[in-house]
């Protein structure tokens, strides 16, 4: 049963990608609309069939898809994949309007579908080879989408930079996988979990930490992100910041839980988490472009997720893992929302500078209001979702009862305050009384975009006011894990 739901999801995504491309190519003059609507429907369909899978996920279960693809499904993977599907669907809806100035949109939507597909693959694949395969699919679609506006210089430069660094990371990962294979002769994570106990596998672990750390924008491996995320089309920025970098971390987590039991990887994550969030927040403070600021804020937020997972791994506090993964969920929606709002502003103002957005809130009320919700949530202000997930992370440090745990939580709390230093001015700029030059002439974005914003905004508020049952699913997902699965 569960295999058939998953097969439907995958088929819809793959066939949707093909159909979206063909539709776009065949009807040139309606390229964006045809391609976009097909992609949106495909995503919606797969979202529905994937949601139906939920009732069947519990403890991990092996499935063989299409007779060739051997996956293992569990609740944790389902949660991550579901988030990417929801975000992907909203982004597809948004991009139908947003991409109206662009050419070649018949390639944009299929790439988006494949990106979502690769996240699903990473969520459920359980051997290192499969993981690597989907990881590369994810990377390649990301490069192409970051550099999508290929006739401008900045996106291309950002894309190349992203690619070089990412491929370096992949090389590390591949090397790590080879070493593991050389030592154990098997790449199945279940096998490795039982086999690796006590074995000295420090080199592959280091290589994995670096390789996935690059994807997860861990300081000081984050340098590609502030270039790549802002230069991508806003929908893709939302996807990248919302779920893709987290997927990198999620994959790292899977591998570490299976392989790394004998090594202090959790503590390393805590240290890097504190560096990452502080660096991200500090750098965001003086940014002049909204999307660049949000990109740095993504780095900072990754720090929180790393901290939660590090606490969970080091001290075995459940709220650490729960908080980290719950923050992945809440962050996907609130950061996605923030980027889509930034996109909406750029869509009307054709400038990404905060300076040019002064007073835009009075002309674009929905955008500005939802952006305010996103920004406050990102800063961890109750009653929005960011507060709930950050609270769990702070709690984990304190529950650990150790000096490092307490210090980590305090640094995280201080960082939250610091982050208000750029979120609040951004809101203030939108609601400024004096208006920038272009602002008086603009109006609110079309309904397809505002609908996308409102959906994510409602999700952000809902998860803040009513974190259960989602939070308890996450907690349950972790309690079901044995090793990586």
């Amino acid at each position, binding site marked *: 049963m569960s295999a058939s739901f998953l097969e439907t999801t995958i088929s819809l995504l793959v066939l949707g990608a093909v159909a979206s491309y063909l539709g776009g190519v065949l009807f040139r003059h309606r390229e964006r609309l045809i391609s976009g609507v097909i992609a949106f429907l495909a995503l919606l369909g797969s979202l529905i069939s994937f949601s139906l899978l939920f009732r069947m996920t519990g403890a991990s279960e092996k499935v063989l898809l299409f007779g060739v693809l051997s996956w293992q499904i569990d609740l944790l993977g389902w949660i991550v994949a579901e988030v990417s599907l929801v975000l992907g669907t909203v982004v597809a809806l948004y991009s139908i309007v947003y991409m109206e100035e662009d050419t070649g949109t018949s390639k944009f939507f299929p790439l988006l579908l494949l990106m979502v597909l690769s996240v699903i693959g990473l969520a459920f694949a359980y051997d290192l080879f499969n993981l690597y395969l989907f990881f590369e699919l994810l990377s390649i679609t990301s490069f192409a989408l970051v550099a999508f506006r290929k006739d401008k210089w900045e996106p291309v430069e950002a894309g190349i930079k992203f690619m070089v660094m990412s491929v370096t990371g992949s090389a*590390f990962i591949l090397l790590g996988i080879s070493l593991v294979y050389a030592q154990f002769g098997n790449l199945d994570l279940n096998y490795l979990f039982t086999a690796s106990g006590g074995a000295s596998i420090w080199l592959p672990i*280091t290589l994995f930490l*670096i390789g996935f750390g690059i994807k997860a924008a*861990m300081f*000081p491996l984050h340098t590609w992100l502030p270039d790549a995320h802002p230069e991508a089309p806003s929908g893709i920025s939302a996807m990248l910041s919302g779920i893709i970098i987290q997927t990198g971390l999620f994959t790292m987590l899977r591998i570490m839980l299976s392989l790394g039991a004998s090594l202090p990887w959790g503590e390393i994550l805590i240290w890097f988490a504190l560096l990452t969030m502080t660096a991200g927040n*500090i750098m965001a*403070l*003086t940014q002049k472009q909204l999307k660049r600021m949000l990109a740095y804020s993504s780095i900072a937020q990754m720090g929180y997720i790393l901290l939660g997972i590090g606490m969970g791994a080091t001290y075995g506090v459940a709220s650490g893992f729960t908080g980290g993964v719950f923050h992945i969920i809440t962050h996907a929606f609130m950061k996605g929302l923030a980027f889509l709002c930034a996109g909406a502003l750029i869509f009307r103002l054709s400038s990404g500078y905060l300076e040019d957005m002064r007073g835009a809130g009075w002309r674009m009320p929905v955008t500005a209001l939802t952006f305010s919700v996103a920004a406050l949530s990102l800063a961890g202000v109750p009653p929005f979702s960011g507060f709930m997930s950050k609270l769990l992370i702070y709690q984990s440090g304190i529950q650990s009862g150790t000096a490092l745990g307490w210090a980590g939580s305090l640094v995280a709390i201080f960082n939250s305050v610091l982050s208000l230093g750029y979120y609040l001015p951004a809101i203030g700029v939108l609601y400024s009384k004096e208006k920038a030059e272009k602002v008086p002439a603009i109006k609110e974005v079309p309904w397809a975009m505002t609908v996308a914003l409102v959906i994510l905004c409602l999700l952000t508020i809902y998860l803040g006011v009513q974190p259960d049952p989602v939070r308890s699913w996450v907690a349950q997902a972790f309690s079901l894990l044995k090793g990586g699965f």
Partner: protein
Amino acid sequence: MNKEMIPLLLLIVPLAGAALVPLLNFFASRAVPLFSVFVGLVTAVIGFFLLGQIGAQAASFEWLPGVLKTGFQLDTLSVVPALIATWIGFLVLIYSLGYMKHEENLSRYYSLTLLFIASMIGMSLADNFLSLFFFWEVMGVCSYALIGFFYKDPKAASAGVKAFLTTRIGDIGLLAAILTIYAFTGTFSISQGLAEGSKIALPLLNFIAFGFILGAVGKSAQLPLHVWLPDAMEAPTTISALIHAATMVNAGVYLLARVYPLLSLVPSWLVVIQWIGALTALLGSLLAAFHNDLKRILAYSTISQLGYMVFAVGVGGVFASQFHLFSHAIFKALLFLCAGAVIHELKTRDIREMGGLQKFMPVTGTTFLIGALALMGLPVLNGFFSKDMILEEGLIAGSWGPLIVAALAALLTAYYSLRTTAVVFWGKRRTSAHVKEAPVVMTGPLTLLALGSLVSWVLVGPLTTSWIRTGLEAPHIDWLELLRETFSSTAFLITVCVIVLGFLIFYYRRNLGWLKGKIPAFFKAVSVGLGFDILYGWLSQQIYATSNLLSTFFEEKVMEGINRATGEGSVALSISSRKMQTGDLHWNLLYIVVALLIILGLILW
């Protein structure tokens, strides 16, 4: 309609009115006064239905399971103040149609007035301490805003602040008492809290009682926190009437009556309450006797009358205190509204500039006289019966000290009531202003209230009946018995004596003029309200200066320093760390190598 919803409706209608008035102001600002009166009328009508609900179970709502359940307490003790607020409030609203006609910001006025009435209703019907405290505070806010309604006048603005701050002292006491009860009984429910009060240790009970008394003293303007009430006369006269008769000051007396079961467990505090009440009664009447500002006279008289009610609670006459509260609400609303009519015409509050107005304002003059006679307690007016009942309770309790003080106060009350009426309405005219009778919307409520002052005591029968039916202690008396008992009691003799003496003082006041030269210090002290304001002013100045000094140091040096250091430090760090983001791939790859080395080091180390 579900009968359980009547009290809820009584609360929600004025609240909704308060919320709708500002909205209505956008569309049809001229309809605001009439709309408010309509809301008042609906509330008043619902009030009649509430009468049938006394003793019934009301709907309740569980906000926090196990902690807070709010509902309504519908015994006579709670319903009477709520209905006074409703009906007097309605009359005041009608009267406002005429009185406030030419003022600005009417939507603010009417909205706050409705909220004021609603919060009094909510306060008295509350069945748990938390919602009682909530509405208590809402009332405080409303009083602040309404006393300072003419905010452009610095006197009015500062009077609002003064009222708010002074009552705040009491609020702290009340909150402390409520929280202590919660800490030791685990419930906010009033009935449960009172029932389980006896289990609390005596020292704590002392503290709780002190907190409640402090709260009541602040709200009901008792000694030594009475100073806000005379200043509150800067409010529109209608608001003064509302504060004095229907809302605000009644809250304190009601609170004392409500927690009387707790207070009675600590007899020493009862004695304190008696003395507070008696001394306040004396002080109020003394100051009223020597003031020349019409509204201030009435304010001091309120203070003095509230003193009687507090005294009554102190001697155990809870019913007597509430009965007097009931009478007082009627005649004091009447007096204030009459004063309002006079002030409205003459544009002055100094009684020395009035005189001989009876001829020009016959209705106002006559009704004021009725109010004044009720205030001094002349037989067969409502003030007479209730005050007599209080003195009678004092006699039964045998607390002679406070009783003598209270009787002395009654004497002065008789004097100043007559003096005020005489100076304002009788004698020769001292003003050349053109004076005419107030419009019907103003005289209508006056007439109704005057009638009420004459006959409201007849209601003693039904009041005591339902009082007993809802489980409160009082002897059952109907109006005939009341007549018989009152005229045959010792207290009646006292009342008659003091009234006669007061009348004599009034009559021979010119022959007493030599006194003024003999004891000038006394008159000077009286003219500044016995120096309470000066003392408090000095105290608050000292506190203010000290805290100003501290805050200047703490705010500007310490906190500002920290703020600046954090803010500027972060920005500086941000600017310097931006250099790391070179955008040069070589550097980025170098970072990867660095990270690799760090992780390797950490793992192998």
